[in-house]
């Protein structure tokens, strides 16, 4: 029996692109898009970049035009939160009540991990949604005496860069020996550290946060695990995200650091998942992964939507080469592929010293990743080689 209706839970990047894909594929049944936030679907990458910098108004970050949204003819329920699901009876519970659903697509994304014990202290922020970005921006505009950024991952790095552009003093605290060492490898992590230092960030590595001190409910200093105390009135915590799966506990779906799907993004009969919340075996890399990247949310959202319209026999595996970018200072950093500590690394164009280069990662004789600093075209061309299964040696020798 053809599918009658599809409920999409999570009205952000993966959700909206999924809905568009359903209509593009000619699905003319009922589509319900449910989102906990009251804003129309918006794009997150600008939050730590142009929005935080103050160079973009928030009306520039919409993911669709209101007119396009009308054309999609969907039942859009904003400010509504899904609270439970039961696979057997197919009952979806939301803050609006219960409903029996046909197809279900889970795109509830992720939220920021917080610093234990500091959640309620004024002046301690995380950055995931628009409201948080606007609150943080107002704090930056008020002129804090110092910003402490906890975590030198991509979000932390972008916040630090945006603060430096505002000429604010920044101290960045990273528990690992090098920023992003686990993602990019030690050598490339060292390049990231150098970029921050060159832009005047006081970078402290290999040290954690012991506690946040406050007076009258407002942060006054951050105490590190080595005993150092940093005087500050503003803290931004960027220590990773957790997938929003609590509402699916006990649903009958498998939840394990995300909604666990098969290789085709199917999580259960008539249920798929996509975006930051989804975990699936990517056959191309022989690895079960959950990818927190913008482009993945789009591609996977489209795939998971189409999967709901496809029979098991015709279903295709989802096996992309993950890709993301990050803008920090005047650097555009891009990584494609899957990099592990211990991969071979070879710089193929430019130099590390200039912070303008492309570096290839190889494992077992194959090209598995490419990192670019201000080398967008190169990254995309090597990404195509990863997709084609090019050997590490051939990739190094290639003219790009």
């Amino acid at each position: 029996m053809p599918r009658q209706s599809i409920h999409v839970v999570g009205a952000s990047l993966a959700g909206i692109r999924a809905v568009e894909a359903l209509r593009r594929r000619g699905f003319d049944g009922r589509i319900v898009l449910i989102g906990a936030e009251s804003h129309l679907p918006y794009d997150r990458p600008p939050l730590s970049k142009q929005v935080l910098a103050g160079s973009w108004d928030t009306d520039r970050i919409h993911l669709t035009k209101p007119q396009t949204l009308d054309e999609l003819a969907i039942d859009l329920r904003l400010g509504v939160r899904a609270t439970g699901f039961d696979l057997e009876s197919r009952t979806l519970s939301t803050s609006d009540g219960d409903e029996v659903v046909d197809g279900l697509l889970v795109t509830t994304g992720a939220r920021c991990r917080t610093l234990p014990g500091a959640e309620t202290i004024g002046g301690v922020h995380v950055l995931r949604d628009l409201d948080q970005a606007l609150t943080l921006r107002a704090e930056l505009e008020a002129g804090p005496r110092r910003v402490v950024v906890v975590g030198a991952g991509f979000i932390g790095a972008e916040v630090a860069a945006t603060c430096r552009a505002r000429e604010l003093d920044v101290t960045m605290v990273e528990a690992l020996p090098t920023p992003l060492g686990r993602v990019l490898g030690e050598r490339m992590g060292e390049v990231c550290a150098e970029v921050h230092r060159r832009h005047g960030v006081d970078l402290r590595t290999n040290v954690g946060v012991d506690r946040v001190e406050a007076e009258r409910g407002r942060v006054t200093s951050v105490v590190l695990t080595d005993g150092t105390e940093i005087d500050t009135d503003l803290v931004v915590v960027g220590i990773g995200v957790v997938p929003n799966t609590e509402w699916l506990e006990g649903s009958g779906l498998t939840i394990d650091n995300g909604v666990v799907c098969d290789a085709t993004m199917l999580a259960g009969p008539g249920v798929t998942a996509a975006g930051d919340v989804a975990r699936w075996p990517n056959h191309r890399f022989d690895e079960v992964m959950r990818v927190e990247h913008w482009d993945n949310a789009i591609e996977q959202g489209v795939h998971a939507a189409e999967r709901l319209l496809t029979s098991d026999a015709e279903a295709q595996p989802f096996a992309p080469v993950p890709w993301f970018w990050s803008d920090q200072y005047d650097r555009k950093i891009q990584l494609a592929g899957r990099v592990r500590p211990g991969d071979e690394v070879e710089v193929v164009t430019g130099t590390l010293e200039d912070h303008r280069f492309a570096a290839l990662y190889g494992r077992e004789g194959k090209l598995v990743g490419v990192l670019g600093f201000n080398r967008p075209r190169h990254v995309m061309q090597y990404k195509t080689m990863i997709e084609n299964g090019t050997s590490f040696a051939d990739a190094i020798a290639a003219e790009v």
Partner: protein
Amino acid sequence: MKIVVDFDLCESNAICMQIAPDVFEVRDDDFLYVLNEHPDEGDRARMEECVQRCPKQAISLED
């Protein structure tokens, strides 16, 4: 159909070039060049994919 790129937004990350190398090209100077401003109507689906996948929403289609 006409391809319009807002070059103030474009950051030359070449996603569009990966999808449609016959229409978009990022050259060694790191700028994007539109090789064919008027792709055939039959190519609309691929052009719409470029519009969607551009991280900067820099591409639009005009009739």
